[in-house]
């Protein structure tokens, strides 16, 4: 096609005028915080995201959001876009703890503080703050509760563990937390299946189904995340292994996160123990950290190694302590809220 010189000149002038007009525009005046997650692929992340965004808005911030679909290169690009947008702070969930270093470096270069929600980066020279649960210790506690149940019941156990994405340090810590405890009871528990899930429901379902076919005598199952419960329940039902506590055929069952399904399963006596991250606390600490970093209350120069980790102690919930600790379980809070709303709707 032939574009005439007049067409070209006219188009260029219009584009230049638009661009120049854009240069004159200014922002809304309120400070903006970027909230960058790598995905909302489980109730934990959805609830965490909502808690952070609500808290930031309540404190008078504008929120700019983006999801990276577990692609760190894409997330680095999103960090740069947010920095170009002029955000005052960044709260992020990265995927890989080493690949995130360049994003922190870029934020440091632009003088914008970065806080990591739930996953800490690997140690580096780039200053940032992370809010993180002690995954290994919480898993130790949850699995120890399962082992106590096994000891009480007696007999030998064949165990399966569903492992998360191996690029995720939380997944690795939970795997190791599980192995720490069962390895101390080798005479009683034999781990016959380690099922990689890649944090994917389909992969987890197929993996557990295959494991239950290959080892029909599996009677001890731990999942590294509660969001896989529906698939695990389905696989266990198909293998005729879904029975409540008290039934001889009950499989000792544990998980990690503390979501709403976990509470329901504990309440209905299908789940023996669950490691709980105190999500509301983590979200609160996260927002407070970014506010403190912006205002200068928190000074990174006082720390000698990075990331500076603010811990979420977490805890294990099990049949023996459910009534004592459930108020701290975020899944219970969601469950209670739904119950209240449904009662209100009925009345």
């Amino acid at each position: 096609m032939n574009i005439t010189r007049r067409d070209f000149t006219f188009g260029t002038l219009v584009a230049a005028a638009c661009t120049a007009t854009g240069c004159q525009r200014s922002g809304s005046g309120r400070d903006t915080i970027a909230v960058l997650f790598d995905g909302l692929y489980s109730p934990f992340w959805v609830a965490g995201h909502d808690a952070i965004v609500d808290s930031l808005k309540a404190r008078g911030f504008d929120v700019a959001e983006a999801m990276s679909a577990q692609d760190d290169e894409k997330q680095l690009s999103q960090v740069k876009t947010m920095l170009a947008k002029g955000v005052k702070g960044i709260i992020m969930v990265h995927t890989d703890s080493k690949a995130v270093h360049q994003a922190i470096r870029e934020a440091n270069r632009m003088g914008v503080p970065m806080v990591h929600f739930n996953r800490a980066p690997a140690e580096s020279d780039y200053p940032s703050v992370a809010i993180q649960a002690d995954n290994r210790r919480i898993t130790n506690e949850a699995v120890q509760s399962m082992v106590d149940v096994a000891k009480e019941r007696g007999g030998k156990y064949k165990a399966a563990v569903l492992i998360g994405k191996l690029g995720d340090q939380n997944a690795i810590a939970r795997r190791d937390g599980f192995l720490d405890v069962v390895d101390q009871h080798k005479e009683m528990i034999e781990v016959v299946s380690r099922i990689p899930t890649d944090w994917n429901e389909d992969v987890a379902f197929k993996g557990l189904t295959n494991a239950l076919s290959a080892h029909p005598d599996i009677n001890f199952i731990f999942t590294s995340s509660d969001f896989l419960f529906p698939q695990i329940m389905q696989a266990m039902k198909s293998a005729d292994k879904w029975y409540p506590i008290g039934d001889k055929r009950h499989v000792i069952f544990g998980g990690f996160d503390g979501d709403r399904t976990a509470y329901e399963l504990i309440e209905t006596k299908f789940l023996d123990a669950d490691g709980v991250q105190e999500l509301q606390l983590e979200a609160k600490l996260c927002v407070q950290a970014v506010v403190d970093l912006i205002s200068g209350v928190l000074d990174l120069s006082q720390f000698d190694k990075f990331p500076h980790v603010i811990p979420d102690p977490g805890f294990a919930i099990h049949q023996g302590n459910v009534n004592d600790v459930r108020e701290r379980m975020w899944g219970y809070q969601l469950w209670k809220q739904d119950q209240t709303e449904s009662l209100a709707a009925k009345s």
Partner: protein
Amino acid sequence: MKRLKHLLLSEYLICFVCVGYFAVMALVLGSPWVSRYNLENLLAALLPLLVLAIGQMFVMITAGIDLSVTAVIAFASVVGASLMSQEIGLLAGSSYGFPVALAAMLLVGTSIGALNGFAVAFARMPPFVVTLSTLTFFAGLATWYSAWFVDRYSPNDEQSSSIGDLPDAFTAIWDDWTLPIVATVAIASYLLLSKSVLGHWLYAVGTNPKASRVSGLPVRSTILSAYLICGLCAAIASILYTSQLATGYAELAATKSLDVIGATVIGGTSLFGGKGKVQWVLFGVVFLVLIDSSLSMLSLPSNVVEICKGAVILVAAVLDATRNRIRLTQAL
């Protein structure tokens, strides 16, 4: 109507759309969009994608498709990092570590490209099936290799299965050499397509493989060379991405497939073969990067961003079919 038809047939259509889109976004987003920092970010986002899309263009010109490029990036990344990592690399401390790792990454790319090309050209397997299989295989292999390597050589690393601590000389590639490398790839590809015999063969084979065979062209080796070039481009992109993140990572660029194929098609490279130019690919990549970055800056949810990108690629594919039909009608 005539002007609209002319515009539709223009090879610079996407270029005009890019300029218009940039201007509209400048109005909507204001000064952050036109800031120097953002322009540098846009350039940084488009350069490695351009290399990938140029490689894909070679394959598409032969009426094929290569879905395995993201697996090439991931596998080359972890192989290279496992050789040159200063902490746990197999060649850590050796002055040969960096160049050997680069060579290994390029070798991985060309080898997988050769495997794809051989299966398509000589075993007559459908490109979609072949490259989907290699995508699955090498993505899985990258994950396994990375986890195995870190477990074996850094058993105390409880933080991740990625491989970090890459040499400064390697990470400097991203800051200092990206533009020259991408420019070299683009110019070499332009010359290869427009000035060399292989370029003419690629277009001929893509337009009509039977006629090419009858005419005595080496159809099989031409197709093989297209996949080889695509694998090489993916390896170069892997070097750039790995250098950018300073980490060898089995999930690296895992979500890039849609962007690569989309950018190639949006620019005007035909899915039916026989048509494609480096400058078209550049327009397609620029447009996709503009959309991605602007929608992120608008803080639209990621699913909306993906819907927009998918819609644009669909429109581009429809446009491709429409242009072909118009040209056919004009020829008759």
